[in-house]
């Protein structure tokens, strides 16, 4: 008896050790991940959640479904919308259940290619189900608008993670390589960073004159270098006007930018 308990204990212990060793989280002694990686993740989120894209996809999906339906059933128009709205219209308990997957789906979109949701919906596409859904059509109609609104609000909330992708930032930054004539005569000074706020029109042109956030410092007699640097930054912004911007669909993201002109590395 005792012997078998010991054997059992030993084997169990061995098994636990093996499991623990085998678990990826314990092996994952990664080096500190630099913050850049996080930014990357955010960008992807951003890209995949571009509102227009998701809407367009839904429309495409709708279209394709309509077509299919045209062939199979004689009730084309409402179905796709139904598919969306049906989740919403059901009684509260079921409602939550169905909404959840959609939220999950949304979230999963965050880190996945844009196509994903489409495929998923296609998978869900089932003539039988459609038949069921058609029955619901009348009921769902009134809530349709609400659904759309929510869709939109969801989209805009996604973009609330207010970031440009690294490549988008780089694209803006690189334009200033040409436009910014650095006043290279300056001495090294760690406090020499000029922050310029710009407001852009959808075409990337300046909506109003660029603005140095620390404007008062420019007028202090002891801050000659700052003034010169700020003026060079303002010239750079005007030279680069209009700026080549990210997609106009994401205008809200980049309509206001803060450019930090930082010559410290150059003057060092």
């Amino acid at each position: 008896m005792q012997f078998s308990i010991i054997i059992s204990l030993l084997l169990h212990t061995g098994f636990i050790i093996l499991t623990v060793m085998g678990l990826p989280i314990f092996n994952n002694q990664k080096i500190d991940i630099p913050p850049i990686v996080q930014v990357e993740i955010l960008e992807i989120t951003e890209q995949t959640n571009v509102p227009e894209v998701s809407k367009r996809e839904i429309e495409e999906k709708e279209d394709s479904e309509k077509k299919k339906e045209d062939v199979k059933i004689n009730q084309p128009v409402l179905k796709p919308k139904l598919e969306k709205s049906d989740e919403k219209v059901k009684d509260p308990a079921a409602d939550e259940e169905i909404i959840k997957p959609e939220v999950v789906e949304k979230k999963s979109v965050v880190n996945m290619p844009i196509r994903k949701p489409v495929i998923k919906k296609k998978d869900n596409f089932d003539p039988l189900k459609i038949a069921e859904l058609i029955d619901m059509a009348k009921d769902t109609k009134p809530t349709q608008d609400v659904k759309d609104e929510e869709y939109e609000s969801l989209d805009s909330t996604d973009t609330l993670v207010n970031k440009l992708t690294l490549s988008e930032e780089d694209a803006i930054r690189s334009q200033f390589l040409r436009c910014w004539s650095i006043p290279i005569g300056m001495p090294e000074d760690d406090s020499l960073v000029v922050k310029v706020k710009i407001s852009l029109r959808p075409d990337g042109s300046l909506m109003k004159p660029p603005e140095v956030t620390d404007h008062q410092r420019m007028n202090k007699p002891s801050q000659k270098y700052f003034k010169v640097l700020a003026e060079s930054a303002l010239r750079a912004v005007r030279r680069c006007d209009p700026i080549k911007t990210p997609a106009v669909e994401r205008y809200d993201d980049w309509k206001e930018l803060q450019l930090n002109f930082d010559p410290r590395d150059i003057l060092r």
Partner: protein
Amino acid sequence: MKNLIQNILFFTLLSITNAVALIEIDITEGNREPLPIAITNFFYDDVDAVILSEISNNLSDVVEADLERCGLFDPINEEAFIQKNAAMHLRPRFEDWRLIKSQALVTGKLKIVDGDKLRVEFRLWDTLAEKELEALVLITTLDNWRRISHMISDKVYERLTGEKGYFDTRILYVSESGPKNQRIKKLAIMDQDGENHRHLTSGKELVLTPRFNPTKQEITYLSYFKNLPRVYLLNIETGNQEVVGDFPGMTFAPRFSPDGNKIIMSLAKDGNSDIYVMDLKSRVVTRLTNNPAIDTSPSYSPDGKKITFNSDRGGSQQIYVMDNDGRNQKRISNEGGNYATPVWSPRGDLIAFTKNFKGNYAIGVMRTNGEGERLLTENWYQEAPSWSPNGRVLIFYRETAANEDGQGHSSTLWSIDLTGFNEREIETPQDGSDPAWSNLLQ
């Protein structure tokens, strides 16, 4: 329900953050090309045309040459100008200037006043912001137009770089001629652009290492009288010269303290070279270092509180820094090789030096604690850096080797930017060595 509330809270919070957060983009690189600037001929009324047309041309040429030479500006060729100067004394048509990529614009107006005085009105414009950056009126005698041009260059430079300019300055140097073993050395002075060149000594005696007084147009230099080194003080404006004293074993002329009241030098007494300071009024000499090694070529920091000098007390020639009373002597050069002729920058942040290593001579700079050493230029033989008054440019001299017959030896003056770029020869009528840069003229 709980989920719903959580979601609402979450999104509300996000939207608040969104309202506050502004995307920031760090611009850490830009274009290091010189700033394109247009310098127009200054406008004048027809009645003054006879006298002023030439001055107007010359004046803009001098400003253009000054700004081009400093390496920070790229003057645009006049032929590219769209707006001609007829209306340039009014507000410029900025779009015309932007079209030719000009970021700054110099305009002006000349007028004869009081019969024979020249009134120069000058304006500097930012063509992109469409605003006036600087406006100035100068009145002077007609033959003084060249200095006015340099002053305008200084104003433009100061307004666009934040640094004081260095165009209205002079360069003092030793003008050399003859074969290597029979060199004739005369003291010479010229404007920083090589104009108004003149000799200050006849060349009968050898002269060495002239230095400017930072506060007035006065210089010290070392000459040999009856084969003994003698230090002179010379007022450039009046030509008055006086002997400071005979200093046996002296190899470098003294340098002035920043207030111009003292001179600091290395003297060899009893075969031992140390640093001494002399009060010019009382002529009292105080010893600052007392070391069996050779301490030489001292130079004050711009606040007068510190002194950098050269010593071989550690076995090789290195750069040291001490307080102005001789305390806290500390070696700062550590990168290997021999260092000589340390000179404290007028800006206070750097010390320039000559470094001999691997058979070559380099002109370099380091921070005043010895860190951040940068060699700006290397060559077969070059030495004696001297700072421009704004601490941005160094002037030094460079020699080429003589062949077996003693021919082919040359000695020329050069300048180089603190950044190591923009190395240029400063042309002199004859060979030149030991240059010294004056402060801005008063």
